[in-house]
């Protein structure tokens, strides 16, 4: 029942490498999501009054 798409994740990961720097695509995605959420939280207008 769990992990319908897990077969996609159970493969050797892809890494981006620049000299001594490297990061897995998965970690990069997580960090990008965090940055996007942070930016969105500041840029998107908060509803004026909630009941």
């Amino acid at each position, binding site marked *: *029942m*769990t992990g319908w798409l897990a077969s996609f994740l159970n493969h050797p990961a892809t890494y981006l490498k620049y000299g001594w720097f490297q990061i897995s695509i998965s970690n990069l995605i997580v960090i990008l*999501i*965090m940055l996007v*959420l942070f930016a969105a*939280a*500041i840029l998107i207008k*908060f509803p004026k009054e909630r009941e």
Partner: protein
Amino acid sequence: MSTSENKMWTARLRNAWQRNLPVDKLLPDDQPAYVASWIYVFGVATIAALGVIIASGIVLAFQGPAWYHTSDIGKFTNSMHFWSVQMFFAFMVIHLWGKFWMAAWRGNRVRTWMTGAVTFVVSIATAFTGYLIQTNFDSQWISFEAKDGFNSVGVGAWFTVTNLGQMLLLHVAFLPLILGVITFIHVLMVRRRGVVPPIDALPFDMEVRK
């Protein structure tokens, strides 16, 4: 209030509590008008993720650390634990970024920041022990690699990352307790001091009592 009551420990505790954190301060239904940004939801989101972590963790604890290797429900519960931890850290770090850029330690709120930062550090330790008790290749590898760091500063003499029993107990008992208590104190401090006012807030909005 009579003098004798003033001397009683119980009365003193109650009075201090009432003074510092009356219930309408603990559960307010309004906030200063400047509390109007999505950044404010990430503290609550972090606690929500912690709730899912604890709930899925309790189920895992009932079945033992090896259950999820062979059971479908176990695998699902383990996955809930895994993803809620990823969300927990993501939300906590966004919350931390937000509070940093608000300089949220202003106005006698330094200890609120400090308890929050300690929570972050303790969370890393808690997650780390979780990775060690997965009873899979990952935990074999992490325990072999990580032992050198702890041994190098003498901590390894007591904190033995290769000892599954020790890591299991720390992960499900000691560390969550510490994490829970500090988080609780952190939230009480936030409620007691109120949400930090904006940088450059207007003077007439604040009532300064000397």
